[in-house]
């Protein structure tokens, strides 16, 4: 749950909250906008984002339902003083636990999901409390940990005793405990940076990141970047590189595209090879299309099939599996598919069966990114599985070498948009797979999305890679 969602009063600086701590590792600009921005400028939630939030709430409610003896403070919205007072009263009374307790510091506000009583003296008596938070992810993340460490520090001050540990309850409902003290230095840095943003929001500027696609402030930041022809629109750029280049007088995409590499290398001490690559990417950005490169010739990846999965990461469920032989694109590619397999075991078996049935032994299996081989390995280490790892070939890596791309490439969507000029989301966003599965016509939607993706992959392969591979194979023969 987020804390401190309502803004400060006029003339007041907003409090630093656990949500800010959670958000900062992903994007400092977002924290500044959350603190000072006009919320009316945020884009509306998408259907799939609503679903994610609803699932998170359900997960939390399910977990909390098992904590019947726990107390929850009741107070008027934003009356944090009252909430904090009630929370303190619960803690002094030694209740087994507090849900959504309010912790207040000088300039800090924390609303941890869980405050649980433990034995051991504190200012409250012969007991003290530890902090936990309920998260709907399947694996713990650093931002979640930093958030509970933030709460733990506030709680330590309140109860005059450091909690022995912090904990996260993840999607499986299992509790994971962490030693929070080693993370204090990391938290201190994060809080310091948030303090700067709180006082001086202008100290941060937008930077085009993978996270921007899912951020509700994207319609504020992205036009700003485009208007400024910001260097973060260049593939391969980092915030540090941008600062270094700007300090050397190269502040726009166009300026970088025209820069003299040797001179720039002398001024910045950056590696000339890196500057050449960035300049080429800037040239592609100016041209608005990929500029073909001449990669090294690999051993022939021919013949081959393209394999693709759609998944629901929250449910850890495979939604759609598709395979098509390379070269069968255009019009109606012959796609063999499985929609909404009953279980993950069934999905894995279907995948192995499809590969065995559709793809002759020895053919390469082209896939996009790490998702498929990681999924395969996760299953393969638990059971006897065919030896397919040898045949996997990552199209993402090969596409990276095939061209300089006219903008940052975070995944298949950008390769499709830049490489084929198509709307990669025409059959829905990849992140919407879980939402599609909840609809009456879910199977049809997933089939359409999976087929669209597979068609894109076949087309990208045909345009950028297949001809080269065929030539190598023929030469080898």
């Amino acid at each position, binding site marked *: 749950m987020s804390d401190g969602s309502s803004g400060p009063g006029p003339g007041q600086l907003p409090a630093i909250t656990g949500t800010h701590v959670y958000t900062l590792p992903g994007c400092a600009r977002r924290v500044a906008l959350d603190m000072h921005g006009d919320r009316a400028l945020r884009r509306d939630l998408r259907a799939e984002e609503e679903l994610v939030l609803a699932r998170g709430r359900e997960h939390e409610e399910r977990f909390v339902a098992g904590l019947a003896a726990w107390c929850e403070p009741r107070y008027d919205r934003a009356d944090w003083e009252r909430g904090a007072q009630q929370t303190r009263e619960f803690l002094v009374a030694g209740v087994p636990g507090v849900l959504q307790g309010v912790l207040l510091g000088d300039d800090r506000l924390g609303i941890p999901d869980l405050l649980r009583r433990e034995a051991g003296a504190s200012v409250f008596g012969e007991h003290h409390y530890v902090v936990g938070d309920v998260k709907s992810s399947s694996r713990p993340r650093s931002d979640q940990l930093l958030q509970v460490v933030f709460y733990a520090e506030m709680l330590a001050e309140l109860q005059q005793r450091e909690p022995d540990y912090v904990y996260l309850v993840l999607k499986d409902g299992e509790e994971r405990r962490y030693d929070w003290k080693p993370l204090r*230095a990391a938290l201190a840095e994060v809080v310091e940076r948030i303090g700067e943003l709180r006082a001086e929001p202008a100290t941060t500027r937008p930077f085009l990141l993978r996270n921007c696609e899912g951020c509700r402030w994207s319609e504020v930041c992205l036009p700003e970047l485009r208007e400024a022809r910001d260097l973060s629109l260049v593939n391969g750029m980092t915030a540090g590189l941008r600062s270094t280049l700007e300090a050397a007088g190269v502040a726009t995409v166009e300026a970088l595209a025209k820069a003299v590499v040797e001179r720039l290398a002398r001024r910045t001490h950056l590696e000339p090879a890196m500057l050449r*690559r960035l300049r*080429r990417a800037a040239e592609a950005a100016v041209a608005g299309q990929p500029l073909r490169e001449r990669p090294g010739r690999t051993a022939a990846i021919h013949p081959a099939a393209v394999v693709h999965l759609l998944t629901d990461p929250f449910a850890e469920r495979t939604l759609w599996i598709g395979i098509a032989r390379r070269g069968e694109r255009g019009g109606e590619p012959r796609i063999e598919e499985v929609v909404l397999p009953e279980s993950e075991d069934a999905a894995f078996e279907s995948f192995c069966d499809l590969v065995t049935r559709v793809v002759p032994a020895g053919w390469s299996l082209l896939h996009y990114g790490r998702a498929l081989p990681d999924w395969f390995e996760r299953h393969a280490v638990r059971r006897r599985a065919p030896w397919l790892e040898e045949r996997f*070939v990552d199209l993402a890596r090969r596409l*990276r*070498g095939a061209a300089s791309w006219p903008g940052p490439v975070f995944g298949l969507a950008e390769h499709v948009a830049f490489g084929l000029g198509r709307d990669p989301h025409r059959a829905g966003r990849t992140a919407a797979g879980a939402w599609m599965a909840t609809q009456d016509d879910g199977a049809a939607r997933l089939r359409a999305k999976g087929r669209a993706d597979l068609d894109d992959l076949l087309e990208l392969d045909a345009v950028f890679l297949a001809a080269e591979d065929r030539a190598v194979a023929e030469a080898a023969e």
Partner: protein
Amino acid sequence: MRRSDDPDAPSLEARLLRFLEREEVDERRSSDELRALSVEDRVLEGECIQDAVLEQVSADDVHVFRVTENLSKFRNGDAVALGDGIEFDAAWPCVYGEFDAREGRLRIERDRFVRGDLPAFETGRRYVIDRRSLGLRGRLREVVRSGFADPRIAEVFAGTHAIESDAARHARAVEKLTAAGLHASQVEAGAAAIGTESLALVQGPPGTGKTRLLAEILRLLGGAGCRIALGAFTHRAVDNVLLALRRLDPDVPLAKIGNPGSEAALLRRAGVRIVAGRGARPPATGVVAGTPYALARLPASERFHYTVFDEAGQLPIPHAIAGMLLAKRWVFVGDHRQLPPVVTAEHADTEVTASAFERLHGFYGSHLLDTTWRMNDGVCAVVAELFYDGRLHPAEEAAARRMPFVPGGTLDEVLDPERPVVLARVDHLQPGKRSVEEARLCADLVAELLRRHGLDPAEIAVVAPFRAQVRAIRSALQEAGVDSEDLVVDTVERVQGQEREVVILSLAVGDPATLDSRSKFFFSTNRLNVALSRARTKSILVASRGAFGALPADPESLYAVAVFKQLARQLPTVDLTAVYGGVRG
């Protein structure tokens, strides 16, 4: 440690076999994927050199190139391919030789294991040099199968083995090791090793006399007529123990199997028999040493009383099994807080990527050598707190030691011996694997240590996580007029097992955004431990503030980063950005 209760779950043996296959496949795939990148990208990955202009070809097929930009990770002896960077099939398989950074001259040599004619290369023409992969894991698969066919070995790795010991032999070992003047924790560990009837583990943090103890163990066992197999992951570690043992005992028969390594002459002078070539048999007594690949080639009929492993914290489980098959008693000496095994692929099954030492330590614990004769009080305090839960202490004679110091220099604040571990900050935002800013400071520090404070070049090591930074530092040293073969400038991996009076560690990267994606490598606390603990009296960390600013997404990396952040906060800091720095964030 996971002990699966699922009867359908694959066995550890099956998982290890899969691990080996995945490693092999990944090596090939990485090679293919690298080749699918443009030359520029391969250069940035450190796997390629472009625009190498051929200057001359000598009679022994050594090709000398002029190279203006060498960002590669290549080392002398690495397998490479020489060609146009496009047609790999037509490229010449060869070996990377000496690179003179000052002159920009690179030697490329013929690979003696590759047959075929030498292609004609034109002088004055530009060529591209790429990495070439070699597959060596086939034999290890057989080793794993044989290992798990042995119920004792299978039991040991399942964590269900009950360690057996010969009490009388243990008691005699205590007497002899005490008489040899060893410290209490060494005696305890050594006696456990000699007395074992199955397994003993000794954890040897930096400078705790691990090699001395190993040599004593081997001397006593050799003197009692035992035949011992000695294994370590690197030739350097194998040679190190053999030479230490020879210094201790001039008579015990010593042999090394296979490649004699770079210390061949030294080994021969020390009377170590090199056993190489088909049909060559190792001696029937004494110590027979080799890397796991060499030990794996010994016929099954070769039996030993003990197998002793050094640097077992770097030894993958299959490699350990290769040595374990030769004997029934196994002694593992290592430290899982120093460098781990080299694993190339990402594995969801993290148990199979752990070292043999770490896995067995998790089940059976180990004997800790708790006193360091290397580090003074200040260096030891930092290392002990960060990496050994405060359980490591300096010996009395080491604690008060300080580096020589003549005040009045420009870098006195950094070099002050009363600050045994210090952070010299040079803020910059370099995103790659090289920082000229840090390299210049490293060079000036070395120059001042040599010229003002009178240190011998052999008493200084400058280390970095990346070879590109190592080269940048070497160039900066040459520019500063410091050119000594005795001065060690290398990656951290290459200095494990060594010690110096002063160690300078340059982190090289200043852009936190690029560190988020390579945090597992960069923020390895094992590597940090190795780097800081090489120093006897002074460790200098040269870094940009940005190097500590990363916030990686996975908690394991966050904890590792937190160690670096804690270090940056607790160390005395000298900010030299105004003199050496680049752009600040």
